[in-house]
């Protein structure tokens, strides 16, 4: 992710938060408000992660084709991409043989991550970051 892309992403996040804030003004339902607050927190968290990754771990850019080589088979490392960041799961105990509960390494697993871990970013915290995904 380079500088322009980061600024586009951040603007996108700002727009999302702004929209959510407007939604907050238009509802009185406490459950709906809680949901919106959660969404806002998630967006803020995402920006924090993006900034942290940008400053700390700007290492390598992967295309999807490059990433697909790192699927954990035949002694290859196992890499996965979540929210545009590429993580190394080769030595993560829950990723035996580059597979994890039906998911296979070497691709963009953002949708699976959202489905199973409900956007719980703490699951990714201890994984080493090796680069970013080129869209």
């Amino acid at each position, binding site marked *: 992710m380079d500088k322009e892309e980061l600024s586009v992403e951040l603007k996108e996040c700002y727009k999302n938060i702004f929209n959510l804030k407007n939604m907050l003004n238009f509802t009185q339902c406490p459950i709906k408000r809680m949901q919106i607050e959660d969404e806002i927190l998630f967006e803020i968290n995402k920006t924090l992660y993006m900034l942290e990754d940008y400053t700390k771990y700007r290492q390598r850019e992967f295309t999807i084709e490059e990433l697909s080589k790192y699927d*954990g*088979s*035949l*002694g290859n490392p196992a890499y996965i991409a979540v929210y545009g960041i590429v993580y190394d799961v080769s*030595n993560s*105990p*829950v990723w*035996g*043989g*580059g*597979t994890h*509960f*039906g998911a296979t390494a070497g691709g963009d697993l953002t949708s699976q991550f959202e489905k199973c871990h409900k956007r719980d970013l703490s699951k990714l915290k201890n994984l080493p970051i090796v680069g970013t995904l080129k869209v």
Partner: protein
Amino acid sequence: MNKFENCPMIDSKSQTAMTLINQSIDYIKQNNVPKLNLIWLEATGCSGNIISLLNGENPGLYFLLKEMVNLKYDNSLSPYQGERAFEEFLEALNTEFILVVEGAISLKDGGLYSVFARYKGKIITTAKAVRMAADKAKYILAVGTCSSFGGISSASPNPSESISTFDYLNDKTVIRIPGCPAHPDWVTGTIAHLISFGMPLLDEKNRPLMFYSLTVHDGCTRRSFFNKGIFAQKLGDAECMFKLGCRGPVTKADCPIRKWNQYVNYPIGDNTPCIGCAQDNFPDGMEPFVRY
């Protein structure tokens, strides 16, 4: 000298079920408690768990049946057949009993894919029989992965629309004893605990903590290879099989310490990666079993 002789941990582990059984027998004799009845129902599955139980040692099946429980009904071991067997089952329902269910519950077409009995011209589905027994049971055990989590019976594409016994009896407290099949010690040990001390300590998935507290990875004989990062390249190598798709780190069971077939060996000791048979998501979430 036997190389295991000096390790008290291994000795105690292989004797857990026997210790519990002896305690419950003492309890029965001292307090003059009548032996509890046991009803073992086979639902949609392969009957593997009852076969596994027949292979039990410390204690063996004979010991279990003679000293601990009255096996009132079992699909495979029942001496009766046809309507007589079903009447035996109905009679047993009027006593105090432990219910053991193995296999998932098939729900498609009203459960017709798993028929329990034909009684007076009517078809009794397994789902109905399990519900009848569960309403009167003192304790309910879901033995085997199909019964505990759905397992192979409810694997994709699930043509019989099976669900686990645990989900089917969601209004009852059901103890899960997963495993494909469940180790005989896990079953007899839990039954012994129920007789002498009541409900055992359970984890968040209702598995008895005494058998399912550690992962296979925690007690693995090849754990030091994993810690050093030395991995097997192919099946048959002596190192850690994590890179070949071993599911030990996500599977809770005491296989490495207890071992199978009368405490002889377990999959990793025989150069096969753990396939996670005692965990939920098996088999769909555990595939591929071996990856090169």
